[in-house]
């Protein structure tokens, strides 16, 4: 058997053996994170002060009731299909509920953005590269989109025709800029052996500052006190179709994201480039034997990852803001959680993004309804990653239910055990 076939066989066995296990571990990690999150909610309910205890356990009153928090969270994310304030365990359905509501639009908005950043992280992780820089790639890609649209819009006929020309171009520009910014750590990794974890994190800081300077010094909106670009005309942005105006969700963007999921899957699984990318992540030595140009694959993978992050920024600008504004939300970091939860599988990114989108949108309802700060999602984000990173923990837990023992590290997919990246 040739080296290439050999590597292929290894790959097939790896993916087949661990697919079910991956899903199980993601679910288990989620449940553990929710449980630990519940403990944190309880404890923080002792720190804060309130008039009446929300719940009483073991004779002690707590200001926050974790069960209520999670109920309000999911209910809020779906736009209140249940009347959670009514007494009893089984909550009655809300007769006024409409699936095209504000809360659900918010959830889908977050989901759409997370699909892009999740895909971005997934592509790099599949290549065995820890791209933590999706955030920076998104910030600069988004800015490029906003500036391009702003300067080109006056040259085009306004209205539908202009939008059809401008929006795709603006997304491409965002992808290019994000991709080039992602290629920098790729090149540093390939040609200078600089650890991409550190370089991408440094580049996140640099991107935020550069974007801030560009907007505050050169391209800012003169009529605004905030550091932001001039708002784009409505026809140049992605407007909500069926969902309410304030939700900032366009079903077109979601459709584009889903199409990208299929495209990335096809690229990774069905093309020779994708094969090179995956082998250099999973079996670097086999890839070398198989004749893969490791340096070029590294740079290209990072470009691709950055381009997806840049598109995320473009969609954030075109769908959510209608302009670029300083203080970009941490979508890139959330993308890490989404990708890890998805086992770095493009199709897995969709449910993972939906779940995390639900958490993010529901957290607003939680803050409003129960007083628990919305920063809770930040804690859950870290906890989920932590638990997915330790499949061994669940194997030990699950050894009583006789889970098949499998020694592969699930989270990285790369199979490159951390340190040899340095």
């Amino acid at each position: 058997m040739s080296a290439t076939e050999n590597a292929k066989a290894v790959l097939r066995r790896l993916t087949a053996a661990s697919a079910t296990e991956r899903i199980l571990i993601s679910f288990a990690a989620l449940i553990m994170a929710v449980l630990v999150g519940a403990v944190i909610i309880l404890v923080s309910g002792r720190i804060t002060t309130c008039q009446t205890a929300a719940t009483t356990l073991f004779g002690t009153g707590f200001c926050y009731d974790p069960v209520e928090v999670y109920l309000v969270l999911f209910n809020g994310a779906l736009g209140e299909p249940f009347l959670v304030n009514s007494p009893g365990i089984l909550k009655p359905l809300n007769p006024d509920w409409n699936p095209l509501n504000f809360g659900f639009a918010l959830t889908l908005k977050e989901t759409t953005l997370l699909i892009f950043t999740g895909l971005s992280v997934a592509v790099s992780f599949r290549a065995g590269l820890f791209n933590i820089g999706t955030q920076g790639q998104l910030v600069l890609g988004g800015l490029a989109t906003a500036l391009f649209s702003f300067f080109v819009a006056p040259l085009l006929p306004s209205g539908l025709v202009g939008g059809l020309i401008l929006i795709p171009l603006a997304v491409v520009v965002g992808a290019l800029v994000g991709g080039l910014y992602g290629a920098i750590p790729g090149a540093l990794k390939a040609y200078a052996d600089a650890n991409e974890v550190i370089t991408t994190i440094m580049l996140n800081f640099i991107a935020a500052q550069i974007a801030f300077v560009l907007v505050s010094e050169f391209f800012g909106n003169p009529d605004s006190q905030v550091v932001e670009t001039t708002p784009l005309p409505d026809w140049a942005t992605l407007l909500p179709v069926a969902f309410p105006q304030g939700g900032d969700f366009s079903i077109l963007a979601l459709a584009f994201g889903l199409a990208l999921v299929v495209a990335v899957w096809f690229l990774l699984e069905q093309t020779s480039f994708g094969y090179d990318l995956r082998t250099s992540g999973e079996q670097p030595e086999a890839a070398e034997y198989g004749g893969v140009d490791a340096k070029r694959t590294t740079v290209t993978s990072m470009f691709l990852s950055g381009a997806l992050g840049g598109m995320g920024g473009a969609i954030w600008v075109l769908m959510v803001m209608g302009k670029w504004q300083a203080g970009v939300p941490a979508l890139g970091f959330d993308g890490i959680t989404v990708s890890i939860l998805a086992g770095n599988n493009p199709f897995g990114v969709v449910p993972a993004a939906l779940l995390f989108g639900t958490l993010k949108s529901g957290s607003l309802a939680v803050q409003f309804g129960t007083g628990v700060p919305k920063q809770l999602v930040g804690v859950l984000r870290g906890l989920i990653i932590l638990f997915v990173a330790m499949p061994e923990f669940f194997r030990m837990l699950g050894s009583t239910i006789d889970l098949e023992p499998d020694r592969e590290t699930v989270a990285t997919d790369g199979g490159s055990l951390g340190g040899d990246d340095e």
Partner: protein
Amino acid sequence: MSTTTIDRLRDTELSYRATLAGGALSVFLFIALLGLAFPSSIWGNFLAILTSRSTLSSALRLSVPITFAALGGIFSEKAGVVNIGLEGLLIISAFTAVITTAVVGPEMTVLGLPAIWIGFFAGILSSVLFSALFAVVCIRFKADQIIAGLAVWLIALGLAPFAATVYYGGVNTDNLGTTLGTWTIPVLSDIPFFGAFFDADPAVYMMLVAVPASWYVLNRTAFGRHVRASGENPKALDTVGVDVSRVRYAGVLLSGFLAGVGGSALSLGLGQFVGNNQTMVNGKGFIAIVAYLFGNYNPVGAFGASFLFAGLEAAQIRLQQVPGYAIPDSLIQTIPYVTVLVVLALVGRTRIPEAAGEHYDTGDDNR
């Protein structure tokens, strides 16, 4: 790889470092020359900033969290566990130190210990607990060290602002109205410029003790030998009857302790925890990783690199206060990060401990 190749690699590494150090020195000399020649120009300002005592003292203060985190990183990675989570350890200790002081009451003393020092130790304790969690996850449950480290960072990045919001209603804590203060050594502190070393934050003195102490522990004690062996050749260590897992736990816990000192000193030096965006830690944990790579895992070298990065930061802060430049502050603020990138690109080929990042299986599953 043959010995000669390794030697050649070592030589290039050394020359990289020498080039960098030489480069930094020649940039300084260049500025000094121009500054002396044209005292009223921008170069004169640069020179004034670089040679002012207040820049030195703020560079020392700023290097405290980076140096302590770097020392911690050295122990952990030398023992074979890559600790990417240093940033998270700094965040959690910085926050815990402030909130503990606030809860005790900033002006209280307990058992003769001022509240701020209780906060200081609580910060260290929180960091040690976090690193213990990280150690268990990595060593007992064989997690991928990079991802577990990222998780530690992200949990701290979420938890500190969350807890601050629960307690204060906002991501920043209130100002304590008190800080660690300064310890002034009489006479010595009157020396021009270098007097900054003797009129400093208590944490600066701790740092100046911790750096040589770490070097000594790592290079001259049995424990240090075990740590190094655990990262380079765990099998050999196992063979002579030393428990590799225990050494690794010790290394990671020590990194939590050291990073905790840095984090507590960071927030208590200011009297407040700032929690928006990347929090007040703002990448210092990651800069620390680059500092010890640059210092080639030598505590003294890591301190030198930390001091260089902190010096850039201090100069950058002073530069913002000089009027009359068209350079935007935000651009100047990128200088330390860009320098870190350049340094990493140039010394990227560091030789990390042989077994770092890999799980060591003793074959005995009950550890």
